[in-house]
């Protein structure tokens, strides 16, 4: 049991000490990956733990991001006010979407979550609530006492700290009774109902919590980029985060983080002209073929690959 803690703890320590050795550009890359790792972790709770495949998770990321900008206005504001607002807004939409979409199952559920994300996309893209297709700028980043998120170092520690806290919180959740119930629902919902569990309630709770975490990632994303645009809520974004999960391996928190790293690196890689020449500008095609190969050959993701190699060594 103690062994499963070693890798994450070491990784956390390494991350905390990185700024001492890494260039600012690389630090920024780490921050970007970390924000997406939080986003991926939030979806892991839904897909990996509870077994609910949502194709509309980007909506909560985007709502968190937009509310951050809208709540900051021209003068900025305290983190203590803006971050909770972003998270609550995302959670509220998750409550609406979850309550309705959980009335369906399987393929219907996938389609409905996608549709509701598209609805949110249209609100931000078409209406005057928020700058339309150009998006909005964050003029003043939130602060909390001495913590000023405009400062790259402060932002680094804030994001890494949030990632560590999210990981720890989800690990705690997974080993709790609530987490075990979610796992049971994933494996056999009928049996859980026969055992007296109100499965709709559990699933809805997971959905809302998941959305709230995604909203938190959205807050960090808005602060990091200093701007938001409607494409944050697009289904490409929702597809990307699902990809991260399958790249890393569904069913573990580590998989979500590894997947976020792998996806970001692959995306950078495929756009390198030095590597792929003329194909670099059509990197989505390379990504597409990679995904197909991946799902066909490595359905358990990179984590599954490691297990397979370990098996080969012993076998």
């Amino acid at each position, binding site marked *: 049991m103690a062994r499963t803690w070693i890798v994450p703890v070491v990784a956390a320590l390494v991350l905390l000490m990185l700024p001492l050795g890494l260039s600012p550009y690389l630090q920024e890359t780490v921050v970007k990956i970390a924000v997406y790792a939080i986003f991926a972790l939030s979806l892991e709770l839904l897909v990996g733990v509870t077994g609910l495949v949502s194709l509309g998770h980007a909506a909560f990321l985007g709502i968190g991001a937009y509310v951050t900008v809208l709540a900051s206005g021209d003068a900025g504001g305290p983190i203590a006010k803006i971050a909770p607002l972003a998270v609550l807004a995302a959670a509220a939409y998750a409550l609406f979407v979850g309550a309705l979409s959980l*009335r369906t199952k399987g393929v219907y559920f996938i389609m409905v979550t996608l*549709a509701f994300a598209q609805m949110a996309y249209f609100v931000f893209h*078409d209406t005057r609530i928020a700058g339309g297709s150009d998006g909005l700028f964050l003029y003043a980043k939130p602060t909390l006492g001495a913590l000023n998120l405009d400062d790259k170092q402060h932002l680094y520690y804030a994001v890494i700290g949030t990632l560590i806290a999210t990981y720890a919180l989800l690990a705690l959740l997974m080993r709790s009774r609530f987490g075990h119930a979610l796992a049971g629902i994933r494996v056999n919902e009928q049996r859980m109902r026969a055992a007296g569990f109100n499965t709709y309630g559990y699933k809805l709770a997971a959905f809302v919590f998941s959305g709230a975490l995604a909203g938190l990632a959205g807050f960090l994303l808005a602060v990091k980029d200093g701007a938001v645009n409607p494409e944050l809520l697009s289904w490409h974004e929702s597809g990307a985060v699902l*990809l991260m999960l399958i790249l890393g391996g569904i069913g573990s928190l580590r998989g979500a983080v590894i997947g976020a790293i792998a996806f970001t690196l692959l995306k950078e890689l495929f756009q390198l002209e030095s590597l792929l020449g003329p194909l670099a500008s059509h990197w989505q095609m390379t990504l597409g073929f990679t995904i197909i190969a991946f799902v066909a050959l490595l359905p358990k993701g990179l984590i599954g690959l490691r297990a397979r190699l370990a098996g080969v060594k012993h076998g």
Partner: protein
Amino acid sequence: MDLPTFLVQCLNAVQYGLLLFLVASGLTLIFGIMGVINLAHGSFYMIGAYMAFVLAPYFGDWFVTRLIVGVLLAALFGFVLEWVFFSFLYQREHLQQVLMTYALILVFEEARSLLVGNDVHGVQPPPWLTGGFQLGELMSYPWYRVFASVACIVVALALYFVVNRTRLGMMIRAGASNRDMARGLGLDIKLLYRVVFAGGVALAALAGMIAAPLSSVYPGMGGSVLIICFVVVVIGGIGSITGALIASLLVGFVDTFGKVFFAEYSGIGVYLLMAIILVWRPEGLMKRAY
């Protein structure tokens, strides 16, 4: 709103709904019979539209011929695609199907970008379908839109006829309700699936070809139609062609009149409609027709 405007909007709603029906019926057939959720279905619509653009110079005024050739090409494409790609997806879990077909969208979009570029293109309706007829003093309704609606109705009737009155349709319905038994009865399930898939692709591509002069041809068109189709299928019930028809028309009306009355908020209208259906009848308006 005066009567001619109201009539025009109704006609627009019906025409939009019918085009949606063509795409959605393909989607719901493929899911209902093969159990595959196909995110790339919207891409077939886009491919159809771009085909209309690409084939136009070769066919001049022979519009209907162009349509027929396009449909046949699309069906052939679908046949091959099922053979080399989709047939491997049937046994996989939904998440994998979602990701594989999402990857396919990426491939199709980039392929289109490589072959035809990313520009927006217009496609002209044939000369014999330009202009319109008068409705009241100020309004005229384009003949091409009438053609579009009529073409869709013809296809819908043909679809109804094939599914309900032919041997092929019987095989489709048998394959849908009980695969193993149908196989036991000697149906070549693999070939059947391939034909159904090709049909679904052809339907979507035909819709794209017909829509090209109306909505122009642009890169994101596959994505937007796909999501609306999902809404149609959720409202109408998976596997039900009748449900898809009713839902498509409903969506057509909500969207068209939404644009008239609610302007910038119109985009969310169809999703609110879906939300209402989910509260009232989560399994869709019609359960499976077979």
